């Protein structure tokens, strides 16, 4: 089996996870910028984080023969402070030129506040000006439906944004349709308790087909499973999916989306 892990926060994981992922057939890992579990005290904390994502983590992954790519932004949980967000946004352009940066992400909303929306729009503007791909985080639990709607409105409100260059992540049964109908890509995150389980993600594939959909573990410092994509591939086999169809979903789909950035390339 071969697969791409399109959303994993490897700075929070141990080297055993790298080893397990590569052993399971992982061909590339992509790491969106996210919340550290605590608020950073200044923009300088983000400068260091962006250096970690673009310099240190690719080297750590390379020790296991795994190509590592990343996305940059200030995450929605720290976007209530617009002044801090503006300072961080000003840092991003110089990092965008680095060889493993795929685009702007994971941006989006958390509690669906006005300031979060303002900062989301600034990121969308930056992505449009710099011709970057976009990866969007949608909110948790009761906030997801509303936040997905507001996010789609914000993206559609900017005429420069092409939906096929944006992935809206963490969709579930109540949000997947609006994302796909609007022409965006949709990501399904496989978590043990929240978001999608493997069985539910496959239900969504059964119902909506496999176009513009991908799977990810979004593994981080919380309860999450770095091998959830290959484990879901095993579940797909139990559900009668052919090897070709599984390959389409866990390898070819993410490769197709990510290859819209010329910097994304695989070892083979």
């Amino acid at each position, binding site marked *: 089996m071969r697969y791409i892990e399109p959303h994993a926060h490897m700075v929070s994981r141990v080297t055993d996870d790298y080893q397990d992922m590569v052993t399971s057939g992982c061909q590339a890992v992509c790491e969106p910028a996210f919340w550290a579990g605590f608020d950073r005290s200044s923009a300088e904390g983000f400068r260091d984080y962006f250096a970690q994502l673009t310099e240190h983590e690719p080297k750590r992954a390379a020790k296991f023969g795994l190509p590592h790519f990343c996305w940059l932004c200030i995450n929605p*949980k720290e976007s*209530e402070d617009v002044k801090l967000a503006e300072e961080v946004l000003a840092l991003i352009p110089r990092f965008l030129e680095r060889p493993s940066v795929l685009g702007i992400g994971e941006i989006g909303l*958390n*509690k*669906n*506040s*006005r*300031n*979060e*929306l303002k900062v989301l729009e600034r990121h969308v503007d930056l992505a449009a000006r710099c011709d970057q791909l976009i990866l969007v985080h949608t*909110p*948790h*639990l*009761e*906030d*997801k*439906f*509303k936040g997905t*709607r*507001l996010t789609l409105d914000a993206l559609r409100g900017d005429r420069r944004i092409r939906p096929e260059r944006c992935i809206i992540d963490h969709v*579930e*049964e*109540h949000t997947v349709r609006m994302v796909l109908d609007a022409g965006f890509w949709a990501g399904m995150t496989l978590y043990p308790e929240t978001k999608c389980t493997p*069985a*539910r993600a496959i*239900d969504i594939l*059964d119902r909506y087909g496999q176009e513009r959909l991908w799977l990810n573990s979004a593994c981080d410092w919380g309860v999450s499973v770095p091998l959830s994509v290959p484990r879901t591939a095993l579940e797909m086999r*139990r*559900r*009668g999916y052919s090897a070709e169809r599984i390959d389409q979903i866990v390898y070819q789909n993410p490769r197709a989306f990510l290859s819209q950035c010329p910097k994304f390339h695989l070892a083979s």
Partner: protein
Amino acid sequence: MMTRQQLLDLYFLEARGKLIEVAAFLDRVERGEGEADFRLAELRRAVTILSRPEADKARQVLMALSDPTTEPIPTATTKGACGAWPSGGN
């Protein structure tokens, strides 16, 4: 597409186990002391969706536990989410 029989063979025990977990959870909360917050009423309301006939129950449960409003809130005062929204039965 798998047959109903195949799907039962694959998932029945898992679903049975999860259903008993929900029942035991409700019993546990009822045996507890003090007032419950809105999450209990919202969960009870969501449970009734399970007996509906149409094959759209996961989406409907998610919607029953979602904020249906459309306007951004003035300020985010917390970072977390609790998993239900106080609909008050509406």
